[in-house]
């Protein structure tokens, strides 16, 4: 590949939306046979972010998209395409999450589609987004648009895994959480960039469907009604719903996934770093590894195998929000960005693995200035925005 000719496609904006409820280890002690100490040592997770009825996958993802657009200083009408990495945990199988999000945010000029690649879905959405920008630039969408460098894409990820969780299966219910997040992709206006400002260097996606049975669920769920969290009672399901979930909910072969995850995370990160002509050993220009927040033990093992310290393997989300699947890596990116741990010129590598089985990574240099705004999203404002988006969602819903 001729690096000189590579378009400087970059992340122009980041946003996330963490739902308002928390399911603690203490809550889970009252729901299944486990303990805070056991969960902490085996997964690193302390709390999981959980949605209320109004914080469905469409509302969460739309709010994350609006925040990413705000951060990029771009209007929804300027977006050419929306890709959402998701595990289809919403109320509708058709239309997709992306189509409902398009309506909720008012991105009237965008195309929209969902990307099903498990926890790697965010990076697959990103790959699709890069493809869209290149399609337009190289004339695959007609001569009129050929050479356009102002294409803007939303690469999002959102899931409400609490909708598909069997809260009697302690192997999985201690892990799963709800969240949405995403990025705006495009070419910065001052695209006469220096070598060290070039944006995304490489993106790699892989899958091995022969082992896909290791993580699965059957369709047909809605969000549980949360009676209480922050106490031992946690999430209460009716007997009927518990039985249904036992039969159809998320299941995972923990040992197989652990083996796959450690190897896949190491392999794809190395592959992506090498093909970007970067070096993991470079201490002066260290790469910030931002992985899918699956399980702290997996991240710890992968960091050791990659020969990097845990400070460079970011893991705030897994401890505080749990595993929110495809969204978790963009949630972590947003957290790091808003906490001023990313600044212009920093090297980063986004890495993920998940159902499919899939794995993916993207490397580049951060081209945005250090974030200067509020570190946390305003909770009162979030509640108002959730109410407003949920109302719009209800108005959109087909009338029976």
């Amino acid at each position, binding site marked *: 590949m001729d690096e000189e000719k590579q378009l400087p496609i970059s992340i122009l904006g980041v946003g996330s939306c963490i739902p308002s409820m928390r399911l603690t280890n203490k809550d889970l002690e009252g729901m299944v046979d486990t*303990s805070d*100490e056991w969960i902490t*040592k085996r997964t690193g997770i302390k709390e999981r972010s959980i949605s209320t009825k109004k914080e469905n996958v469409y509302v969460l993802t739309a709010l994350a998209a609006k925040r990413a657009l705000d951060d990029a200083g771009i209007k929804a009408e300027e977006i050419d395409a929306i890709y959402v990495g998701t595990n289809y945990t919403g109320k509708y199988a058709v239309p997709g999450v992306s189509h409902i999000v398009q309506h909720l945010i008012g991105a009237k000029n965008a195309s929209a589609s969902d990307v099903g690649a498990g926890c790697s879905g965010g990076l697959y959405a990103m790959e699709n987004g890069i493809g869209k920008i290149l399609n337009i630039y190289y004339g695959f969408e007609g001569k009129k648009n050929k050479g356009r460098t102002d294409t803007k894409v939303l690469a999002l990820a959102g899931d409400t895994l609490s909708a598909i969780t069997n809260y009697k299966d302690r192997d999985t219910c201690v892990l799963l959480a709800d969240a949405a997040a995403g990025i705006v992709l495009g070419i910065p206006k001052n695209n006469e960039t220096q070598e060290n400002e070039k944006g995304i260097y490489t993106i790699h996606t892989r899958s091995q469907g022969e082992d896909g049975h290791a993580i699965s669920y059957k369709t047909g769920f809605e969000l549980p009604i949360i009676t209480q969290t922050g106490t031992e009672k946690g999430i209460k399901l009716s007997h009927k719903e518990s039985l249904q979930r036992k039969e159809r909910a998320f299941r995972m072969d923990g040992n197989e996934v652990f*083996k796959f995850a*450690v*190897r896949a995370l190491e392999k794809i990160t190395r592959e992506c770093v090498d093909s970007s002509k970067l070096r993991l050993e470079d201490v002066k220009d260290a790469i910030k590894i931002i992985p899918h927040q699956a399980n702290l033990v997996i991240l710890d093992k992968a960091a050791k195998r990659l020969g990097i310290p845990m400070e460079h393997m970011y893991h705030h989300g897994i401890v505080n929000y749990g595993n929110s699947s495809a969204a978790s890596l963009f949630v972590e990116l947003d957290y790091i960005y808003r906490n001023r741990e990313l600044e212009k010129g920093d090297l980063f590598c986004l890495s993920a693995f998940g159902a499919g089985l899939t794995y993916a990574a993207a490397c580049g240099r951060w081209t945005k200035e250090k974030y200067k705004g509020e570190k946390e999203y305003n909770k009162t404002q979030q509640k108002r925005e959730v109410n407003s988006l949920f109302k719009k969602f209800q108005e959109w819903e087909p009338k029976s």
Partner: protein
Amino acid sequence: MVEIGKEEKENLATVLNKAEERLLIEFEKLPEEEKFVMIEILQEDMKRVERYNTGKLAEVGKDEVNNYFNKVISLIEQYQG
């Protein structure tokens, strides 16, 4: 708080984490003809897990520990006849 990545006090969960890593990652990575060499190490790991397998953590972790024991025992039978 979570102490992974740093020196931490060992308990059944941390010992099992390490033993499972050896069993699931390192052992499986070995060429078939070299696997028998690691059987002794796996046996040592199993004894260590057994030593820590007491108290409250043993109660909540019984399924994971049993699953681990079954896997090691099956490998011992396979590679030591």
